[in-house]
């Protein structure tokens, strides 16, 4: 961390493109991205791509590659440009904390893919179960009921 790092890629955005699929690989995404990319930088990673450039251009490329496998491709913003030494595993000695968050979500994301596929074929007119809300505390035992239990136990 000795060197002072000048702000890189000012005015650009970087987006992660993750793919969790048995039929689409990061390599497939890269090829498709290059088909339409003009002014963006594309970096292939183990989980997908990082795309850096002007926001409208990055969005255009992402819209193109999402078409390959819409329910298995996921996108998010990244604060750092790719390969930034402040965030690079090689420099830190270990993964940056956010990486573990990715690792966790990539294990869950297959169920989200199922969800995306399912709702695309749903009839919007139907009322279907939503995600359960956060569990409330169990209700206290009713006093009358408690009395009945006690009475039942008395010989």
């Amino acid at each position, binding site marked *: *961390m*000795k060197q002072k790092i000048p702000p890189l890629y000012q005015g650009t955005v970087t987006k992660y493109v993750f793919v969790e699929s048995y039929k689409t690989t990061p390599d497939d995404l890269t090829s498709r991205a290059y088909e339409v990319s003009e002014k963006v930088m594309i970096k292939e990673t183990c989980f997908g791509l990082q795309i850096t450039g002007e926001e409208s251009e990055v969005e255009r490329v992402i819209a193109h590659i999402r078409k390959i496998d819409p329910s298995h491709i996921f996108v998010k913003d990244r604060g750092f440009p790719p390969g930034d030494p402040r965030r690079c*595993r090689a420099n*830190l*000695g*270990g*993964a940056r*904390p956010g990486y*573990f968050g990715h*690792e*966790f979500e990539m294990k869950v994301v297959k169920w989200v893919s199922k969800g995306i596929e399912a709702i695309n074929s749903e009839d919007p007119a139907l009322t279907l179960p939503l995600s359960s809300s956060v569990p409330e505390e169990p209700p206290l035992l009713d006093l009358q009921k408690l009395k009945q239990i006690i009475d039942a136990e008395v010989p």
Partner: protein
Amino acid sequence: MSEDLVRIAQLSCGPEYSGVQKEIYTAAEAVGAEVFFPDLSLADIRRNFRDFGLDVRSGDLKLAIARAVALVEGSVEADAVFIASCFRCAEAAIVRNELRRYIHEHSSLPVVSYSFTERTTSGTLLTRMEALTTIARRRALLARERQVGLTMGVDSGSSTTKAVIMQDNEIIGTGWRPTTEVMGSADEVMALAFEEAGVKREDLDAIGTTGYGRFLIGERIGADLIQEELTVNSKGAVFLADCQHGPSTVIDIGGMDNKAISVNNGIPGTFTMGGICAGASGRFLEMTAKRLGVDITELGPLAMAGMGGDVPMNSYCIVFGTQSLVNALAEGHSKENVAAAACHSVAEQVFEQQLQEIDIKEPVIMVGGTSLIQGLVRAMGELLQTEIVVPHHSQYIGSVGAALLSSGFVEKN
């Protein structure tokens, strides 16, 4: 002595967000060390966290716990460990303490824990980082138990400057002066020590320096060893107290900051350094002596004749502590009782703020100038419920340690 890069594993929560991570990097670089974050998989994090058994909620603390387990198990290698979390966070304080203890008990890695605020600077962290690297790099030197040849140690502290000349494992000359101008005070104490020992500068086989002015003095006089006071004082303490083997605890209440060091075979395992306010330091006792109109050397016997429990005094902050002092005198309390209360208050601050961060193992050795204030030693002994050892020449602890350790360079010279 190897100057290889020392790899310090960082276990932390919050420094990036407090703007102090750069300060940690800077302090480590200044002492030729590199801070790194132990690499784990999410599965390792889950397993290690579960196995450790401390069910905290913060993700970064879970990560710190998992990394500590990996260090102890040896799946990640490091030379030392730095544990850091935000000051005033209760959850992190529990983790910080338990990890420090766990690493200390289950590995030979030197470990230091620190709670930072956004005001923490690399300068504050420097001595701690330096001590970690000294322990990692100089284990062979720190294992030295006897002084050989003719060597001198100079300790430039915030309040006083001390010099000691040793020959063949005996102290033959000493010098002591209040610190004014760093180099000037050092010249004075060296002259005193030379005179008492009856030797000259050119007769010396090696020199060591320690304390705040160690770099300046060390470079001016061409010292063989320039080393922070945590390791040097530990060594000096176990040498003078004649307990070089096994565990011990060294307490040094200094003029500006306090050191509490958990030592094993003369090498620090865990340590804390600092203090919230000068109210927990020798400075408060100096003020007390001045206000009572006695010399600091008279404060100890005065306190021994008094009963501290009769006077309410809390020197958590030196300003409020001084107010208590003034009020106590105005209420007609005796000088003896006020002196005893001041000693008790300083001991209590050190006990509450610092001694909780290390493992107290007997013998407990008190060193430094304040160890000569018997009232303070008694108060500390009462709090720790143990008999405190104050070795001879305890006020020269840093100089003795530096003279002893620098004799490792005698044959080389």
